[in-house]
């Protein structure tokens, strides 16, 4: 069973916000390390996506939403997609901006 659009929008929006907050903090660290925050290596990009997804899962656990999502018919695959897609999209957008900026 696929999650409905309202459910997806609700969680994707929240996880995108979480990623954005996280990315602001990480960008500061990248600048301190002398790295352009918009042109991180693929490895760093992947690590950032995984880190943001883990933070999203921690947030789900903190709010004890697993039973709610289970009752809504959201399984592990759909959940993984909902926590991975927002940070991945965000990182790819930032990377595109960095590439176009030159």
């Amino acid at each position, binding site marked *: 069973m696929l999650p409905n659009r309202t459910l997806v929008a609700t969680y994707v929006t929240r996880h995108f916000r979480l990623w954005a907050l996280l990315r602001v903090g990480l960008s500061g660290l990248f600048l301190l390390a002398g790295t352009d925050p918009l042109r991180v290596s693929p490895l760093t990009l992947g690590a950032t996506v995984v880190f943001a997804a883990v933070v999203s899962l921690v947030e789900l656990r903190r709010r004890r939403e697993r*039973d*709610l999502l*289970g*009752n*809504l018919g959201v399984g592990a695959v759909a959940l993984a997609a909902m926590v991975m897609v927002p940070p991945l999209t965000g990182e790819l957008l930032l990377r595109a901006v960095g590439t176009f900026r030159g």
Partner: protein
Amino acid sequence: MTALLRVESVAKSFAGRRVLSSASLRAVPGELRVLFGRNGIGKSTLLKIAAGRVAPDGGTVHFGNHAYLHARPHRLAAVGLFYLPDADLLSSAFTVRHQLVLFQRQFGGGDIGEAAARVGIAARLDQRPDTLSGGERRRAELAAVLVRRPTCLLADEPYRGLAPRDAEVLTTVLRALAADGVAVLVTGHEVPTLLDAADHITWCTSGTTYELGPPAVAVQHGAFRREYLGPWRIPLNSREER
């Protein structure tokens, strides 16, 4: 009537401690069944196995015509099961209305306003659950059940901590669901309330379960009275007879 949910001979151990050795459970459409048992005896574990929240070490879960060696919550939810945990179900991140909308859109559920009015939380719909009292949160969860319109409801200690008025609302809704053909199964220790509401009693003890039958028959079961109800819980009629 045929059981919609059947849990057959499940076993479960935690860190080497066997909680369930061969326990079974049934939820039957149109019946409100109560699972009694002492604290720590495995009632919640059995319910979680039935809902797919916990994987059993052995045994099977049947829902409808399907048998699951390892049932998954989302698969059971998709075919009509609703699990009400002993902790809060609704998230504090979103308003009650928003979460009811999620159920309504996901399952083509019932009317939100009607469900909220039925459990008396119409004025609280735009609040987040963490701003509600415990009784109101439980009512909001009941509204979610009504919007979802499940075919089977498993509720783990739904009466715990509820004021008498909220408990009355809960009983009314559970009885109405059963009358509508939903298979309802609840656990709890609120013996007078649950005996009054139940159609059938199951007793969980020593890692297994016993189907005791209707409450009037169950309370006459010697071991159940001795080991669970205690001498003080002899029904009024029996006391008068003595």
